[in-house]
């Protein structure tokens, strides 16, 4: 029986390039990012002053914050997709990034004149921002789940968390091209809240779907 199986598997053998896993992840990411970007353009549209915004530091802080978290998520996903690996380093970097942005946000809050504080926390879109982030993350999350189901994660919870982080942060990155908010506390609070919600969804999905 086992000998037959081995024979069958040997006949089925096709070469696998050594970076095959990263290629599949890349395809999933590209599909998710393109879909999410198209959705943002058609549904919300880029901010009207996008080119002017390129000259402001807060645009780049939003850009780098979300992209850094997204890259760490993708890095972690590429690790935990392999059996027996845990992606500890990228997830530790995530904690550092979130912590440092939170500290910067705290400083900007206490140093702001009291009458401006409400504005830099709530902006004009606080209650919709997390929803948009979640919505724009969905194509990325679905692509990432399809990716992970082909892999061999031995810790489904961690695998779900990683794909959730990747999808949530990159969805927020796409959203940042629409968003006109300029407060650091706003970014820390509402962007992070949207990303955290997607991390939660990813973790639950991981526990449900990443069995193999």
């Amino acid at each position: 029986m086992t000998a037959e199986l081995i024979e069958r598997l040997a006949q089925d053998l096709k070469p696998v390039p050594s970076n095959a896993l990263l290629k599949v992840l890349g395809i999933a990411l590209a599909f998710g990012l393109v879909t999410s970007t198209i959705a943002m353009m058609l549904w919300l549209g880029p901010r009207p002053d996008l080119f002017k915004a390129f000259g402001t530091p807060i645009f780049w802080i939003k850009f780098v914050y979300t992209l850094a978290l997204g890259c760490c998520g993708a890095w972690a996903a590429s690790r935990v997709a392999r059996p027996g690996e845990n992606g500890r380093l990228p997830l530790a970097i995530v904690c550092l990034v979130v912590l440092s942005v939170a500290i910067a946000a705290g400083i900007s809050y206490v140093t702001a004149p009291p009458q401006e504080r409400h504005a830099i926390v709530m902006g004009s879109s606080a209650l919709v921002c997390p929803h948009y982030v979640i919505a724009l993350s969905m194509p990325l999350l679905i692509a990432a789940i399809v990716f992970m189901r082909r892999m061999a994660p031995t810790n489904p919870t961690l695998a779900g968390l990683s794909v959730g982080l990747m999808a949530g942060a990159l969805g927020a990155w796409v959203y940042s091209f629409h968003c006109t908010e300029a407060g650091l506390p706003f970014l820390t609070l509402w962007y992070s809240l949207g990303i955290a919600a997607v991390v939660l969804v990813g973790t639950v999905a991981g526990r449900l779907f990443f069995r193999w």
Partner: protein
Amino acid sequence: MSGLPTSEDRLRSLMLASLAGDSAAYRKLLADLSERLGRYYRRRLREALSAQVDDLVQEALLAIHARRMTYDPNRAFTAWAFAIARYKLVDLLRRSRAQAHVAIDDVADFLADVDVSTESAADLATMLDTLPERTRVLIRQVKIEGQSVAEAAASAGMSEAAVKVAVHRGLKALFNRFGRKR
């Protein structure tokens, strides 16, 4: 999977050749792995599940085949293969636990638990007294004195299967009668 680390180099080079498409190397690798997997699973699956060793070996080989792109050539091959083997074992144990009917070992645990408590000896005797004599003797021999099923069967003049059934029924009856009150 003891014995694996020493063969890391050989297995890893077989794996690299397999990933490049060398099916002769792949056949050798899978044959070697199936032996190691069999040894690993046989040692870790208890009586009730020992019939599943072959199935589990094949499942692990299939997973190794289908998910071979998750092997990172910069890491140890045996660690990768072992992580898959272990995952499949944990998966089987979880599934078998989920579908277990009143598992006999759980009931034995229940009895053992009574045994450690201070007033237990008398309680245990009282509980066993509610069972028919023959069942009581068998449970004593197999679950308390630690005799094997074969020994108990020989001394009672019964078949091993009959002993297993009698012990199981007796423990289940005890559990139904006393287990719920606790």
